[in-house]
C-alpha cells in the first residue's frame, strides 16, 4: 500500500460546496508520513470541512484524496474500511453517553476490526493507562471533565491504530485550564511519529508542534510553510492580517 517516503495523505484539487455556498475552492495539500501539519485560519475558512472530507464524512464535489497510497475518493471504495485507517477527533468530543469510557473505546475494535473481547480490552486499558484515564474506565462520560472526555475521545480514535489522525479544533470547547492536558497528549502522539493533520486556534501550540503550518482563507490554502516562517514573516498580506489580529487578541 504505502512505500516508505510516499505521502501519507494527498489532497488534489478538492472542491466542496454546501448548496450554493462553496466552502473548499480547490485544495491541494500533501502530508508526509510522520508529519504534523497544522491548519490555521478564521472560522468559516473551511478547516473543519477539509478534515471531514478526508475521512469521507463529507463527500467532495471535485478532486481526489489519496490516503496511504489508496485513492479513497474513487468509486467503489469501501468507505468503512477507509475510515478504520483514519482517526478523527472532534471539537465536541462526541463520546457515546450511554456507554462507559471503556465501552466507548472497545466498541469499534470489536465490531469493526472484529477483535476478541479480551484483546480489545487489553488494548484499551493500555491506552487509558498511558494517557492517565485508567481510573475513569468504568465511568460514564457525563462524570468526566471536558479535558478527560477529549482525551478519552483521542484514545478511542487511537484504539483503531489509525495511520493518520485528524484533529478538528479539539481544544476549542475546553475551559482554558483543561487545554494543556489535551495538548500534552497530542504532543506525545507527535513524538511517537503519528501523522497528523490538526485544525487549531492554539497558535502557540501550532508553532511548537507543527512541521508545517497551512493558512486557510475562504476555502483556499493561501500560504504554507514551516511555523517559524509563517508566524514571524508571512508572505501573503492576508496571512499577515490574520496573524496581526491574533497577536492583538493576545493569543500568540
Amino acid at each position: 500500500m504505502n512505500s516508505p517516503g510516499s505521502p501519507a495523505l494527498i489532497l488534489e484539487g478538492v472542491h466542496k460546496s454546501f448548496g450554493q455556498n462553496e466552502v473548499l475552492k480547490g485544495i491541494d495539500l500533501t502530508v508526509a508520513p510522520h508529519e504534523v501539519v497544522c491548519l490555521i485560519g478564521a472560522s468559516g475558512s473551511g478547516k473543519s470541512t477539509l478534515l471531514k472530507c478526508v475521512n469521507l464524512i463529507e463527500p467532495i464535489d471535485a478532486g481526489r484524496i489519496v490516503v496511504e497510497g489508496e485513492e479513497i475518493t474513487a468509486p467503489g471504495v469501501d468507505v468503512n474500511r477507509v475510515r478504520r485507517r483514519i482517526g478523527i477527533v472532534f471539537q465536541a468530543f462526541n463520546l457515546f453517553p450511554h456507554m462507559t469510557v471503556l465501552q466507548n473505546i472497545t466498541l469499534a475494535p470489536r465490531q469493526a476490526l472484529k477483535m476478541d473481547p479480551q484483546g480489545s480490552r487489553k488494548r484499551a486499558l493500555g491506552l487509558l493507562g498511558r494517557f492517565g484515564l485508567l481510573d475513569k474506565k468504568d465511568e460514564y462520560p457525563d462524570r468526566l471533565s471536558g479535558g478527560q472526555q477529549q482525551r478519552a475521545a483521542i484514545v478511542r480514535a487511537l484504539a483503531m491504530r489509525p495511520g493518520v489522525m485528524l484533529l478538528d479544533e479539539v481544544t476549542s470547547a475546553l475551559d482554558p485550564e483543561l487545554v494543556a492536558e489535551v495538548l500534552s497528549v497530542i504532543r506525545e502522539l507527535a513524538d511517537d511519529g503519528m501523522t497528523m493533520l490538526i485544525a487549531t486556534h492554539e497558535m502557540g501550540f501550532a508553532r511548537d508542534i507543527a512541521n508545517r503550518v497551512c493558512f486557510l482563507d475562504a476555502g483556499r490554502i493561501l500560504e504554507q510553510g514551516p511555523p517559524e516562517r509563517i508566524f514571524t514573516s508571512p508572505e501573503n498580506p492576508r496571512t499577515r492580517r490574520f496573524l496581526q489580529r491574533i497577536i492583538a487578541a493576545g493569543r500568540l
Partner: protein
Amino acid sequence: MTTRGTGPGDRLDPEEAGPGRGSKMLGGRAVLVSSASTVLFFAIIAIIVALAPGSGIVAERFFDPFHLKQSFLGTPSTPSVAGAFLLNVEIFAISEVLILILALVIAVVRQIPGPVFFPFRMVAIAYTDLFRGIPLILVLYMIGFGVPGLGLAGLSYLSDVTYGIIALVLVYSAYVAEVYRAGIESVHESQNAAARSLGLTRWQSMRFVILPQAVRRVVPPLLNDFIGLQKDTALVSVLGSIEAARAAQIYSASEFNYASYVVAALLFVLITIPLARFTDRLIARDKRRRQAGALA
C-alpha cells in the same frame, strides 16, 4: 455505581434539594399549607357528593360492596371480572412485545438511505399513514371477521383473541414506529458521525450507538402508548372473547348494577400505576446520561 439512590420521590440535582438550613422552617410550613388545602379540597367534594339527593342510589348502583365483591369473584351465571382481566393482561403482554419489535423494524426501515431502498421506505411510510389513520375498532372488525371469512388456509382459522392481538399490533406499531423515529432523529447527527468515523458500518452505528440512545429518550411516550394499549385490550371483546370490560357488562346487564364496571376500572388503574412508576424510574436513571457525549 451510583452513589445516590434514585426513586420517584428523591431529588437528583443539588440545586433542587432546597437551600440551606435556614429554610427548613419554610419547607415545613409549605408542606402544612399544601396538605391543609388538599384536605379542604377533597372535604368539599366529599360533602357535595354526600349531600346530593341521588347519592344513596348512586352508592347502591355503583359502590355497593355486595355487588363489588360478587362481580369481582363471579357467579354461576356471570363470569368473574377479575378472572376475565387475566385475558386483558395476556393480550397486553403478548401485544406489547410484538409491537416493540415490529415498530422498531418499521422505524429503521423508514430511514435507510439510498435509492435501492426506496420501495421499502415507501412501504414503511404507507404503513404508518394507513394504520394511524384507521380507527382500531375498524381494524378489529376487518381482521377479526374479514380474514376468517376469506377462507385462507391456516390464516383464516385462528382464534378471535389471536386476530385481536394482530389488529392491536398492526395499529399500535404504526404509532410506536413514529415514536421511535422521533427518538432516532433526536439523537444528534454528531453521534452518527463519530460512530461512522471509527469505521463502524451504518448498521453497526444504528445498532450500538443510535438506537440505544434513541430508545432511552422515548421511554415516556412509549410507556404512554402502552398505558393506552392496556385499555384498548378491552376492545378485543368485540370479536367474542370475554375480557374484563365485557365481563363487567355481562354482570351489569344481568344484575342491573354498575359495580362491576367500578371493579374493572380499578383493575385497569391498579395495573397502570406500577407501569407509570417504573417509567419515572427509567427516566430519572437515564436523564443524567443524556447530557454528556455531545454539546448539541
